[in-house]
């Protein structure tokens, strides 16, 4: 099972603060996710030819400017921001 330290490390990297109960819950949830993903390993993948799931390459875009969004639109989700910027108040 995924360790308590691993959960704390991931939480720290993601700037999440978890209490004891949450840590235990997340350990269980992550475990079931990992087990689910591990099921792939149990498959017999020795078929003749694997289906090409990633046969697309070079999906490029030409270097041509398209008009950007208006500033008001960009800042709409943050109550308009401040002086045209996203604004983050100093935390105490």
């Amino acid at each position, binding site marked *: 099972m995924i360790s308590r330290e691993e959960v704390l490390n991931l939480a720290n*990297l993601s700037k999440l603060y978890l209490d004891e109960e949450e840590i235990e819950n997340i350990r269980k949830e992550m475990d079931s996710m990992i087990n689910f993903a591990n099921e792939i390993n149990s498959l017999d993948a020795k078929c003749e030819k694997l289906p090409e799931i990633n046969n697309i390459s070079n*999906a490029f875009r030409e270097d*041509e400017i*398209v008009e950007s969004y208006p500033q008001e639109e960009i*800042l709409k989700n943050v109550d308009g921001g*401040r*002086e045209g*910027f996203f604004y983050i108040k100093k935390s105490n």
Partner: protein
Amino acid sequence: MKYDLVVGLETHVELLTKTKIFCSCANKFGSEPNTNCCPVCLGFPGTLPKLNREVVNFAIKAAIALNCEVNLLSKMDRKNYVYPDLSKAYQISQFYEPICKNGYIMLDSGKKIRINHIHMEEDAAKLVYKNGDTYVDYNRGGVPLLEVVTEPDISSSDEAREYIEKLQMIMRYIGVSDCRMQEGSIKCDVNVSVKPEGSDKLGTRTEIKNMNSVTFMTKAIDYERDRHIDLIESGEKVVQQTMRYIEATNSTESMRSKEDAQDYRYFRDPDLVDIILTNEEIEKIKKTLPELPDSRFKRYVNDLEISEKDAALLVKYKNVSDYFENASVNLKIPKTVANFIVGQIFRTIETEAEKEKFEILTTPEQLNEMVGLIESGKLTMNLAKKAFSKMLESGKPVTEFVSESDMQGIPPEEIEKMCKEAIESNPNAVKDYLSGKEKALKALLGSVMRQTRGRGNAGEIEEKLKELIK
């Protein structure tokens, strides 16, 4: 004990593409905040980044110019970290399969600074701090970068400076970046360690982040070297950590230590597909590259007999070098053109930024015409220099400042007469010259030159004077 300094550089170069790396917003410096933005570069969920083909082309150009191999298959990865300059909480970069590897930049000493790899990535947003609060401008978010990563081959702050200056020069020549430190279009992270002289084992390194001035970078390297040596000498250990350079005190301070070192959990970005290149495409791009500064420098010194000092001044900025090339077309002695650029044009230009732009009124064709007249013997160097000053001020051609009679020269009998007069009226100078004082001849020469109002050919007159005195 003596120590060797070991430095590696990771340099971020902002590319001069028209648009950002994964969306069609303008890649422009100095706009109003958050006006070159869209849901893709703001990292909204559900948006799909699409790679700008020009970024790939620029990376290939850089690879060729920096003697790298181009990886025919490369991929984009996610670098995960949480910070307000990155709303997606991951930066799209290249980690497992970067686009270029194994290159080098050669220093003047002949030493090669090896380049481990070059990868493409997006820049993060710009943070502005005011009264402890943070203001975020996403115009820079998604601007394309190339990160050029060296091996730890640099062994002094001077070598680091030369490496960066060469990198800037090459990037400008190939037109992928303007590399302006003060605008942040080139930045570097510096890895520093020391080891006992001659030892094979590398010491513990520290990394100084975000240097955006070559001068401060060299100071930071020297400071960090001394700090490491002091620690070792006093029996302490260098702690592997990330440092910040403080300009005001010329010192470094810790940003974060190894304990909370970043764990970026890189993985393949599932939104972006493989980049597959062919040798034919690479060859095609190679053909579009201009002659690189090193090659120009060698040609100027070896074939055109320009001094190393002047050749270095000419190649430093592509605009200057191109001007020299254009002004030298079909001339016998291009060195004369070089002398006018270094001697007279540079005197009218104050700053490095102006040299880089090299916007001057006289066209290369006008300088070419004037030097052509010198070469055909119609114009003396003396008159040309005077005329050229006026040309530079006005942008008018040489014919505006020298008359037909100036260009006809002075008949030899006239010259002889003037020389005789000078000799007769300066008996002391003649005596001095005959007693071995070579310099005394200059006084006579000067007097004749004044007589000709600068139209005479100094070499011819000098010969004539010597002939007459004997």
